């Protein structure tokens, strides 16, 4: 244990030193903490405004919170993904003569920290917002920190370390837990769908005795109710059941023995987690840890091209091998957003009499906010061969990004057509909207390259995206303002032609600037 404590202490000290040396990271931490406090204060005010500022209000929040935590913790521990391991653990910690149980307990320190912080927040909120008596708050805190944490640690240990139970049995237990969790979620959704989401239905839901009878999580909620609202028969019985469950689970976890069988899963998780972090740092949109290895289709076609054009055809070949060709999560997202916007904003947009402006605003907004979407082009910059191709940088830029423009055009069609039809815009406006979407996406892409050129690696991908958004906001803001003024002063049908022509000029200029990036690799 002393080695693990040494490890944590040194990591903390060195990270702190590093944060102090890099004021940007320290400022970010301070900003996040301040934002967190601001959110909590706002939520406290909101609780007062909606008359939630009573012990009953706290019970509602705790009930929902417990269900959420219960669902997520059990699901993650069951799939052995609840604790963050890193490749350095696989190398330096797992082979060391340290008890596998101890390693597990130590590695989950972030989880405990989160529980303690949440416990403190609830305790402060109980005293200041919900008007709960101090002795009740103290008991509540004890339930959260002692009982809940003991339960969580015990379940974690049992699920991770029990190597005596065959793997397939563990798999079935995990599946059983997942089915159970999905069952609870469906029940909650159906309940609120039937009775609507209001303060009354929320209260009625948490007052329903059946909820307290759900094993473990229901009994846990009963303990909260006992402390915050006082005793009744169901509360007392369920709380006793909870105490017994915690004791039995704790004992079982204490007695369980392991020789480190979970290292195999933990090592795989560590690799997947490192891969996920790397992809995130590269600016990709990552939706999960340990995504399955891609399967590619066989393609018999062959392409012939020379110079920079070869980049485009290589990308085309790669996309042809993809399962869904150029269609991606972004296409689905565009379709989903489009259908929602077409339906939800139809009345407002048409009523305003200037749906074109609404539409332009949405397209501009999307061009600004979507930063986590990368195609194959970004990887081109990491390949030395790109710089070796004997062709002009501007041509390399064009052919490296041409496929992205085609993809943007397709996504633009998927996004603009449903909204255009839903808002009853004429065909010309829809076509212009699609073209504007495509050009703006190209602009986003080139501005990003320019941001990379300006910043290098100094601010990381997040910084680059921020600068990219700022540049785009400044440049496109002018175009948007001009087209809006022209729309109001002359004719609304001019909105899209103006923004389209303006963005095309700006994009070509940005593209020319961005082509510098294709001269040499050194700038990376």
């Amino acid at each position, binding site marked *: 244990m002393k080695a693990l404590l040494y*490890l944590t202490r040194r990591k903390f000290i*060195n990270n702190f030193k590093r944060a102090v040396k890099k004021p940007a990271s320290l400022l970010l931490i301070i900003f996040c903490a301040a934002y967190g406090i601001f959110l909590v204060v706002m939520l406290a005010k909101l609780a007062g405004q909606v008359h939630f500022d009573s012990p009953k209000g706290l019970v509602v929040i705790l009930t929902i919170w417990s269900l959420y935590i219960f669902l997520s913790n059990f699901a993650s521990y069951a799939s052995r993904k609840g604790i963050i391991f890193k490749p350095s653990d696989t190398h330096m910690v797992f082979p060391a003569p340290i008890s596998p149980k101890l390693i597990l307990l130590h590695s989950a320190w972030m989880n405990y920290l989160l529980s303690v912080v949440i416990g403190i927040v609830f305790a402060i909120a109980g005293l200041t917002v919900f008007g709960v008596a101090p002795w009740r708050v103290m008991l509540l805190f004890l339930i959260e920190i002692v009982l809940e944490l003991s339960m969580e640690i015990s379940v974690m240990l049992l699920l991770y370390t029990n190597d005596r139970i065959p793997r397939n049995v563990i798999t079935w237990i995990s599946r059983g837990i997942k089915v159970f969790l999905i069952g609870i979620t469906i029940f909650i959704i159906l309940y609120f769908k039937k009775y609507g989401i209001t303060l009354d239905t929320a209260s009625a839901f948490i007052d329903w005795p059946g909820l307290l009878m759900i094993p473990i999580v229901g009994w846990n909620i009963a303990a909260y109710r006992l402390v915050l609202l006082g005793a009744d028969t169901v509360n007392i019985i369920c709380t006793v059941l909870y105490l017994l469950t915690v004791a039995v689970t704790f004992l079982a976890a204490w007695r369980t023995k392991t020789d480190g069988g979970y290292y195999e899963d933990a090592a795989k998780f560590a690799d997947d987690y490192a891969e996920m972090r790397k992809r995130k740092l590269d600016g990709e949109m990552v939706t999960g840890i340990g995504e399955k290895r891609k399967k590619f289709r066989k393609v018999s076609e062959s392409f012939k091209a020379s110079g920079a054009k070869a980049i485009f055809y290589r990308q085309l070949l790669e996309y042809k091998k993809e399962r869904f060709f150029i269609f991606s999560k972004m296409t689905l997202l565009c379709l989903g957003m489009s259908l929602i916007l077409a339906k939800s904003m139809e009345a407002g947009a048409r009523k305003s009499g200037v749906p074109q402006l609404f539409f332009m605003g949405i397209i501009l907004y999307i061009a600004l906010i979507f930063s986590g979407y990368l195609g194959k082009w970004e990887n081109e910059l990491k390949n030395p061969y790109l710089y070796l191709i004997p062709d002009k940088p501007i041509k390399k830029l064009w052919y490296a990004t041409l496929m992205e423009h085609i993809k943007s055009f397709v996504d633009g069609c998927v996004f603009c057509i449903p909204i255009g039809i839903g808002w009853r815009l004429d065909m010309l406006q829809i076509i212009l909207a699609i073209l504007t979407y495509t050009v703006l996406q190209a602009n986003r892409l080139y501005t990003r390259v320019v941001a990379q050129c300006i910043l290098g690696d100094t601010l990381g991908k997040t910084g680059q995206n921020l600068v990219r958004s700022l540049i785009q906001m400044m440049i496109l803001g002018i175009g948007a303002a001009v087209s809006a003024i022209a729309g109001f002063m002359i004719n609304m049908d001019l909105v899209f032609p103006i923004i389209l022509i303006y963005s095309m000029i700006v994009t070509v200029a940005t593209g020319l600037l961005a082509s510098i990036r294709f001269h040499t690799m050194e700038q990376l």
Partner: protein
Amino acid sequence: MLEIQDLSKSYGKYLAVDKVNFFIPDGQVGVLLGPNGAGKSTIIKCIAGLLRYTGRIGIQAIDAKTLEAKRLFAYVPEIPSMFEALTVREHIEYIRRAYNSNVTDEEIEAMLSRFDLDDKQDKLGNELSKGMMQKVSICCALAVKPKVILLDEPMVGLDPKAIKELKEVVKELRDQGVTVLISTHMLEMVENLWDVMFVMEKSHIIGSYNKAEAGEKDLDDLFFEMTGSWETDGDS
């Protein structure tokens, strides 16, 4: 000594290692050879306790899964992974504490100096190049003062001086009675080091030689005699 008995490991339906047996006595250097995908890395990871397996692995006659055995065992993986926020020196300090090793400060200094890390002691894990990480990984393994040491492709990424030093270190360990197992593709790197060799192909050990049996034949000849050719099945 390192003994492997009936070691098997499957990934789902794929049998990566099939009933492998071998033994390396104290003070001998064993080399595990074979093409990509033969199962070498899987064996190494099983010995290091990173995978579930069936069969028995003994380190100095103690079950490899026990903490007692782990105290006697050091591991240099193919791809080193450092703690990002720990300095080179702190990595070794961690190892000293984890293994309760009696390695002295002077010995650590000498080790770091030998691998040209003496001026990089305060560098953090995420500031090191791959070659430097490999050197730190080797120093960490040596700081354990092991009875059995396992080196998985240890020469990859090392500069010529470090390779030379590592070869010397392996010889010194052998002279001190330590059991060494090296898994590698680079036959020429272990040519003058090995005492016993094992060749793996398609999840099995297809043959083994000890130095006396090999006579004048070099490692290349022995290897290609057994495998016929250097065919690869792809990484597992």
